[in-house]
């Protein structure tokens, strides 16, 4: 173990110098430097206002237990009204990859629903399903979810546990992490195993999508992360895949909240957008609401749905339910056609994992071209009507 100054963060404020009982910190080139007198007392660690003084390697484990006793990858499979949500199958996709890399097993945890749903999780890649079919899970209350998942994790000690970054996952998963005294990384867009250390590399956007950060949870287990729906690809479905279902009893579960009523408000368009294979999306470059009429026609010809940038929504050209991006929907269609969208990071985080992206923009430097597979530098008001005409010809309309 060593203590080091991160010179990029150090502002040369000298606050740390007086904190050291051993006079082991000196200034070199206007940055703090820790010399050989350092006794590793750690006193300086918390002193730096910039957090520039860091421990390197072999930190004291937060957990008393041996980390290597934790094995296997778990996916929390959320269900609503007895149906497992798609995000669970997406998590099984990435979970399978992680488990294979670690040469370990992939398990799913299902609370509520019946055993046919547990079977489906096996077909989608799980080796094992821990299933508690109790009716206490019919409605979503945090307490029983937290109690039972924490109990199972303590008992079976998985190394990695993933959940969807849905209203449900984001509500109860943090409590599980808090109770287990382990780390949780929200909204990951990519998960990998570090080939050197075996730790989970959890990659997520931060600061409104302006940067990406890699987060580690090196000292405690399990390593927990949430992933937004539609960011990961589903794994492969295999009807013949066999696995084990372990039935779990619901015992001693508390429940301090009461769901009195569940109200559905889904509009057709929202639901279309996230299910759609093709999305035709428009931004301020469309110039007005009539631009969206044009996109609706194009979307219809392609069997797709219409999306929008926030700027277009803010202009009032199309309702909020169509908004794609950080504060809108995350989508992952086979084809995303961006028309007159500049490609601000907040928009990109919501659509960049689409399989194929076509961008039409009259500014050749627009950042949207940075994520596009096919770039068209041109006027949407020219290209799109022409495309609609051609498509009609091809389809013989």
């Amino acid at each position, binding site marked *: 173990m060593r203590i080091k100054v991160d010179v990029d963060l150090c502002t040369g404020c000298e606050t740390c110098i007086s904190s050291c009982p051993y006079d082991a910190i000196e200034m070199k080139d206007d940055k703090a430097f820790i010399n050989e007198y350092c006794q590793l007392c750690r006193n300086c660690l*918390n*002193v730096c206002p910039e957090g520039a003084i860091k421990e390197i390697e072999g930190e004291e484990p937060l957990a008393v237990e041996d980390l290597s006793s934790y094995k296997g990858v778990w996916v929390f499979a959320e269900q609503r009204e007895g149906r497992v949500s798609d995000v669970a199958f997406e998590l099984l996709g990435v979970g399978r990859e992680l488990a294979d890399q670690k040469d370990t097993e992939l398990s799913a945890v299902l609370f509520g629903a019946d055993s046919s749903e547990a079977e489906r999780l096996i077909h989608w890649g799980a080796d094992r399903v821990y299933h508690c079919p109790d009716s206490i899970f019919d409605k979503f209350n945090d307490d029983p979810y937290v109690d039972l998942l924490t109990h199972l994790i303590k008992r079976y000690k998985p190394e990695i546990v993933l959940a969807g970054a849905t209203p449900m996952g984001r*509500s109860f998963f943090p409590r599980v992490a808090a109770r287990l005294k382990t*780390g949780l990384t929200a909204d990951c867009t990519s998960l990998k195993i570090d080939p050197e250390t075996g730790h989970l590399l959890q990659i997520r956007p931060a600061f409104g999508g302006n940067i990406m950060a890699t987060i580690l949870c090196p000292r405690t287990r399990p390593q927990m992360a949430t992933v937004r729906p539609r960011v990961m690809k589903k794994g492969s479905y295999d009807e013949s895949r066999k696995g084990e279902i372990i039935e779990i009893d619901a015992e001693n579960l508390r429940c301090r909240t009461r769901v009195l009523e*569940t109200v*559905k408000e889904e509009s057709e368009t929202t639901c279309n957008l996230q299910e759609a294979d093709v999305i035709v999306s428009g931004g301020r470059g469309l110039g007005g609401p009539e631009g969206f009429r044009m996109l609706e026609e194009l979307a219809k010809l392609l069997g797709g749905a219409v999306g929008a940038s926030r700027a277009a929504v803010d202009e009032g050209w199309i309702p909020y339910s169509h908004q794609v991006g950080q504060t809108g929907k995350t989508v992952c269609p086979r084809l995303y056609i961006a028309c007159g969208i500049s490609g601000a990071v907040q928009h990109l985080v919501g659509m960049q994992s689409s399989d194929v992206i076509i961008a039409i923009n009259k500014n050749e430097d627009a950042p949207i071209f940075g994520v596009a597979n*096919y770039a068209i530098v041109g006027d949407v008001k020219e290209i799109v009507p022409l*495309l609609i005409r051609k*498509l009609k010809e091809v389809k013989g309309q």
Partner: protein
Amino acid sequence: MKIVVCIKQVPDTAEVRINPETNTLVRDGVPSIINPYDLHALEAALQIKEKIGGTVTAITMGPPQAEDALREAIAMGVDDAVLLTDRAFAGSDTWATAYTLARAVSRIGYDLILCGKQAIDGDTAQVGPEMAEFLDIPHIAYVKAIDDINDRVIRVKRMMEEGYDVVEADLPVLLTVVKEINEPRLPSLKGKMRAKKAEIRRLGFKDLETDEHLVGLQGSPTQVKNIFAPEMKKDRKVLKGTPEEVVEQLITVLKEMKCL
């Protein structure tokens, strides 16, 4: 009714940029604001106080300059403000932040705790539920309306993926709120005057009577390994020519993708 609102001072992320050469955040000149969701939490607290009486305390954990955020909260109308600041808290992740806030809040006392849905710098939405866990009280996340509240019970609308749930809980409880819940008020002139003079209570590591392994960097299970600029696609193809030619090429792409 004793209401505590947790607010965080954050950089206005709309203005944060990354320096692509150094892969570091450029925060120069970026203004600090109260996390927008926390303004809605403050407003909700003030409305409850106006309806059934009580006191509202705003608390923040952060560097000394986070005091500005508290003065702003006082200007909006909160009764009391607490600044939780200590070098020992530096480098906290959500676990350590929630733990530290929970220790402080239990010293202050509460019937109801309000947080924003998430902070716009980290966007984690974890601190609220984690705090509730440390305090061993229930929480309800993503609250978009408070339907009813009295000294004993609260009933709210909680946003879910396909609509909302009506949820009830006995106090004490912690809520995290979304923007739909209300329209935050602007500070009044009188409030601003009061904010200037108001005394802000400070709490540090020693006041919390806890273990240093549970706060700051040491108490943080997660670590940021590195940060980098979002990647660009490399296999990009530019479709060139007259609009007619471009559209022809597009049709070919769509046919290849079996979109027709």
